């Protein structure tokens, strides 16, 4: 098997705090994204999903990052200089952020925000020097006859924005929430990346708009052969969209595997809890359950399994560091009590490979 597109192994991210305890936001996360797949990264708020995503693009300057491997197409991202990272950002890996209203620049037309990515990473012959960028921004405006602008309009059309020609000259506040998120997606696609990291792309939207955006993402993934690392706290979204899923809790991975396997046979008490808390996951007649308690403070996380204080099955053993159990080649869990000793769930499943 060839290298996965993105490999993260044993990633730890700490925010140093000079006069307090450091925040260990990510504490040994591993995941891998295959070319062309949609990989879900789920976990409740504060579990370190966004930090993981930003670390992949090396956007966090104030964090200490360590990993036994952080590689894109086999290339070590941690070894790259800032200049080399610029050739990865936007070009190989596009990023879609949660709140498009704040993530888009309020004083730039959406067309220019897309066009500049085309200029920097695409196949157009337009100067990207600081001076010509500033001239475009403050003096001449973006010329509508350039290849990059035409490409931006095309991309707006691709992501399903009506009247793209007109829209391209508008500012973010003139668009609807759903359209803004589509602009973010167009912007992420503009450099023709192989991977898009989408950090809760639909959380700020209402349900009908959300469904449209998710469909869009799925189709783009197929049409452009881009892989997507889809960050969400909504297992319903994962069920609809993802091929594989990695479940995070308080900085660590609890379980990962093919989406179908995880939904049919969750192997970690935390995943089970999460599944019971969504309508699709709860068995008919069950009340929608929430997991009692709250996640530990990342500045002061106890050793061993971070979920043990809330886990119905916790024992003494849970204070030891997390073990890894393979339930199948692809489905792994990190729990001291799984697979069950009674053998109820430890039969190794042979799961079908995802199609893409």
């Amino acid at each position: 098997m060839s290298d996965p597109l993105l490999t993260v192994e044993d990633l730890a991210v700490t925010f140093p705090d000079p006069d307090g305890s450091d925040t260990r936001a990510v504490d040994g996360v591993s995941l891998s994204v295959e070319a062309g797949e949609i990989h879900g990264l789920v976990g409740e708020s504060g579990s370190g999903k966004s930090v993981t995503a930003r670390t992949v693009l090396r956007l966090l300057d104030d964090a200490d990052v360590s990993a036994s491997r952080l590689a894109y197409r086999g290339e070590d991202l941690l070894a790259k200089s800032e200049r080399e990272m610029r050739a990865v950002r936007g070009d190989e890996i596009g990023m879609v952020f949660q709140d498009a209203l704040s993530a888009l620049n309020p004083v730039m037309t959406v067309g220019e925000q897309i066009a500049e990515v085309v200029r920097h990473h695409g196949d157009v012959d337009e100067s990207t020097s600081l001076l010509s960028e500033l001239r475009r921004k403050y003096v001449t405006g973006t010329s509508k006859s350039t290849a990059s602008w035409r490409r931006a309009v095309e991309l707006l059309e691709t992501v399903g924005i009506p009247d793209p020609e007109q829209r391209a000259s508008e500012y973010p506040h003139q668009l609807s929430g759903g359209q803004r998120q589509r602009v973010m997606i167009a912007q992420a696609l503009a450099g023709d990346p192989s991977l898009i990291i989408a950090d809760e792309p639909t959380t700020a939207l209402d349900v009908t708009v959300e469904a449209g955006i998710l469909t869009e993402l799925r189709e783009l993934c197929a049409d452009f052969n881009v892989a997507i690392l889809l960050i969400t706290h909504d297992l319903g979204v994962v069920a609809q969209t993802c091929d594989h899923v990695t479940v995070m809790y308080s900085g660590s991975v609890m379980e990962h595997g093919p989406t179908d396997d995880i939904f049919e046979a969750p192997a970690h008490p935390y995943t089970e809890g999460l599944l019971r808390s969504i309508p699709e996951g709860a068995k008919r007649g069950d009340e929608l359950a929430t997991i009692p308690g709250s996640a530990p403070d990342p500045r002061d996380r106890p050793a061993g399994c971070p979920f043990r204080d809330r886990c119905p099955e916790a024992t003494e053993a849970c204070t030891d560091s997390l073990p890894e159990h393979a339930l199948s080649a692809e489905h792994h869990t990190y729990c001291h009590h799984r697979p069950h000793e009674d053998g109820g769930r430890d039969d190794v499943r042979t799961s079908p490979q995802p199609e893409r």
Partner: protein
Amino acid sequence: MGLERYVTKRVLQSLVVIYAVASIVFVAVRSVPGDPARLILGGSADVDAIRAMRANLGLDEPIPVQYAKWMADLAQGNFGQSIYSGDPVLSMVANAAEPTLSIGLVGITIAVLVAIPAGVVSATHYNEWEDYAATGVAFLGISMPSFWIGIVLILTVGSTLSFLPTYGYASLKAGVIPWFTHTILPALAVGLPYAGILTRMTRSSMLEVLGEDYMQTARAKGLPARTVLLKHGLQNALLPVVTVAGILLALMLGGVVAVEMVFGVQGFGRLLIRSIERQDFPVVQGSVILISIVFVFMNLLVDLLYTFVNPKIRYGGGE
């Protein structure tokens, strides 16, 4: 569209403000104790001469009539003549305004040219020596009044760089170079405190912008750091600065008046103070109204500049 309505509204507002200022000036000048006619003719003048002078000046009419005449004259651009010299107020003010506006505008230009880069560097080097240096100098600038900076400049720069005159003013008509050498020192004196305030504002505004999501987005798109900073950040950082700069303009013109004295410039401040002393009330009235017209006009300009840099106002909608 929203923009036209906005501009119309602002222009009308400005006219109302100017009208109000004119009325206040009218009242204020007439509530100053003392009789201009007596002042002109001297203490020993006889009653008839004074009465004649009062009639001549229009001071014998009822106040409402004086007010109506005054407004009618103003509306036609007629600001009257000096009681003393008989020169038209408009040309007196125009002559005195040239040095004042030169010093003010050069001062603002220096302030903006210094403050924006200093503020940006300060923010991008937060808590490094560049930041300390910039905020330190800015603090000095803010804490020294303009006239004091003027005196210091005369004593230091003026005595070492002999080609920079420390006294008087040369009109632009006499050539750009003499104009500039006469203007630069007073302009620095006026501009430095202003630069200090603007530097601190640009710095804090830029610091805020650096933490904004769209800056991270720009970086995540693989843009070079400087492009992110200057293309994506600068305009956003200047939005609040532009608003405050407009208010500061007014304060700065106050500083010019004091600096003129220090540098012996026959500017607007001189004219105003001398006219007040002599109770040359047509000149006082005219100057105050003309200066307020300049103020209102500059504020209007700043507001329009703001709509230009902020598309949310230019294109309506938004939050």
